[in-house]
């Protein structure tokens, strides 16, 4: 392998890792706080991307800054409404964790089909957030990939700071550790759950804007994202933000080098083999507690 090839592979691995991290952060965040495995996270992604598409190239042709802000706002309200209307009533019943998980699966299918009815089955795309590319030496890095990388790191830092330094974040950590205990000490757990879903929906919306130019938008695209996100989250440790980001880059690097040496068809199988090996040695994943 030449130095140029190595450099290109590392750059590809880093950008792919950023993509996987962005995919996984919303899923891992909502699980980390609420212990609800949100099957609808992929559908949130799909809807975030469609909303951005409607605001930009689809209908309104708004400037991208406005598209991002409005999408974030809509997704926040959507997540809030979703939790209030669907999760909250179910949480009053025994074994709500299992019930809510099944309901998220059902609502994912509902949201997918709603997208199909409204937008049709055809693929759509979004323009790159920033067009063009850098050519440092023999390498090529698209500006959009840099944006994804910066966004992934920024989201991780902001979420970590939010959970560690703010009152609301600490309340979320309390709920994640012991829901009943948190309630006893006066943490408003219903509000925490609602805001957690709202933030998860916002993360899905941001992912949609960042990834749609690469993986396109269609009614079931969320599942593609969800499956990768699930593997990344499991490897990183369920609910661990730091773990998800590190796992995303590890898996991306393994996939890139596997693709280079033995072919693209082996990327995903090796991805899964690594997951199985890690879970055999460390069943809780790399960072199986709150980071």
């Amino acid at each position, binding site marked *: 392998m030449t130095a*140029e*090839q190595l450099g*290109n*592979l590392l*750059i*590809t691995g880093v*950008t*792919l890792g950023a*993509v996987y991290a962005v995919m996984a952060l919303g899923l891992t965040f909502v699980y980390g706080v609420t212990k609800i495995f949100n099957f609808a996270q992929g559908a949130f992604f799909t809807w975030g991307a469609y909303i951005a598409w409607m605001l930009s190239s689809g209908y309104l042709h708004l400037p991208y800054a406005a598209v991002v802000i409005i999408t974030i706002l809509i997704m926040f309200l959507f997540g809030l409404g979703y939790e209030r209307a669907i999760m909250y009533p179910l949480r009053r019943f025994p074994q709500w964790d299992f019930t809510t998980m099944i309901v998220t699966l059902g609502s994912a299918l509902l949201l997918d089909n709603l997208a*199909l009815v409204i937008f*049709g*089955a*055809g*693929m*759509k*795309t979004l323009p790159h957030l920033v067009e*063009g*590319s850098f*050519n440092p030496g*023999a390498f*090529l890095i*698209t500006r959009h990939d840099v944006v994804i990388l910066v966004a992934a790191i920024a989201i991780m830092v902001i979420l970590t700071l939010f959970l560690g330094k703010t009152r609301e974040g600490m309340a979320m950590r309390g709920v994640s550790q012991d829901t009943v205990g948190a309630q006893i000490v006066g943490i408003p757990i219903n509000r925490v759950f609602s805001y957690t879903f709202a933030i998860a929906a916002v993360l899905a919306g941001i992912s949609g804007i960042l990834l749609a*130019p*690469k*993986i*396109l938008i*269609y*009614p*079931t695209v969320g599942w*593609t994202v969800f499956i990768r996100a699930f593997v990344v989250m499991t490897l990183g440790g369920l609910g661990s933000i730091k773990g998800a980001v590190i796992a995303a880059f590890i898996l991306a690097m393994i996939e*890139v080098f596997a*693709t*280079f040496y033995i*072919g*693209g*068809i082996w*990327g*995903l199988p090796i991805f899964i083999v690594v997951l199985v090996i890690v879970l055999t040695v460390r069943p809780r994943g790399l960072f199986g507690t709150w980071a």
Partner: protein
Amino acid sequence: VKSKGLLKLVIGIGVVAVLAITVPLMSGCRAPAAPEEVEPIKIGMPYYMTGAMARDGVEIKRGTVMAVEEINSAGGLLGRPLEIVEADLINCAPEDVTTAYNLLMAAGVDVNIAGYFLGPVGVHTFGKSDVPLLNASAQQLSLDAVLENKEEYWNIFDGAGGERGYEESFTSLTELLPYEYPNKKVAILTTDFGYSIAITDYFREDAIEAGWEIVLDEIHPFGNTEYGVQLAKIREEKPSLIAFTTVHGAEVISFFTDFIEDPIDSIIWAQYVVSIPEFTEVMGEKSNGVFGSGSYPPEADAWDEKYLARWGEVKTGAFYGPFNYDAVHIWAEAVKRVGDPTDYRAICQAFIDYPYEGWCGRFVFDPDTQAVNWGGIGKGTVPVTLFQVQEQRVIPVLYDDKLANEFQMPWWIER
């Protein structure tokens, strides 16, 4: 006096009414039934309403609807209107195909007109009944399934032959196209689907025989959208030809989106994907210059006008709209000859005995394979055409070893 007159009028109307009803019956004629009373003949349409191939599904539906509307507006078939019954193939998993099959059979369809199936699953599922199936799956595996079990699968007909139809693609691109390749290097990408792999095998074989160096020969998972590693290799080796065989639009769109960020002087042949309208719809002007192949002869241009008139949109893809239109007419002609839409054996025999001249070519079904003859670019009765995206439309460029329309230099090639 007034009441007597009224009575006479009522009696008169009554007599006229009775005569109007009884005279035709007495003379052996039946009163023409109101159109809504005639039982329609049901056409099953298993196609992709959702999933990765859904944009193809739109064209499949539109072609079928156009033919059915035309037949219905001309008085129907054997005096009966045609009615389409739809069923979603989703992503063509066996369980999806079985569900679609069960729905259509329960609806009482007399023919199934599909676009395509991924693999021989369509043959094995729709071959369980006697209802004819017309499709254009274009896969040798499907033809072999019919050949191996003719007793059971006599009702399955394929309007697109096998992958062999693409076997001259490399030669056409490298020898017949008026373009001087700067080197003899080719990169080949394909997806892990038998149809795409088979076409790649033909392409690779011809490239090696012609003395070309294969700098990348890659199979990736179906639906892959990450091509960073492959593009790094391509940019390093700078092949003058890139062949990408798949039926999944997102694969080529993702690859091409990244490719044009820093393009090299390569002719790109995206085989089937160029036929999917999605490619030009998503890529817009940037799609211009990309090559593809499919059964869409130059004469089929008139189809575009017909399509525009019906749907109010310029047709951007190729093949499955006109094929499904043709397939409905192939079946309707056979039914007319047989005189009974439920005499399935006779209808299938009529497919073989009476070739049909359609938009896609002349449908001459081989009695053994029950498929049309696909003999390479411009060869056979339903020929394969090499086309190029020009002004966001699919334009036939090479047909029957001749230049059918002007070749345009792809915009990303600097020379």
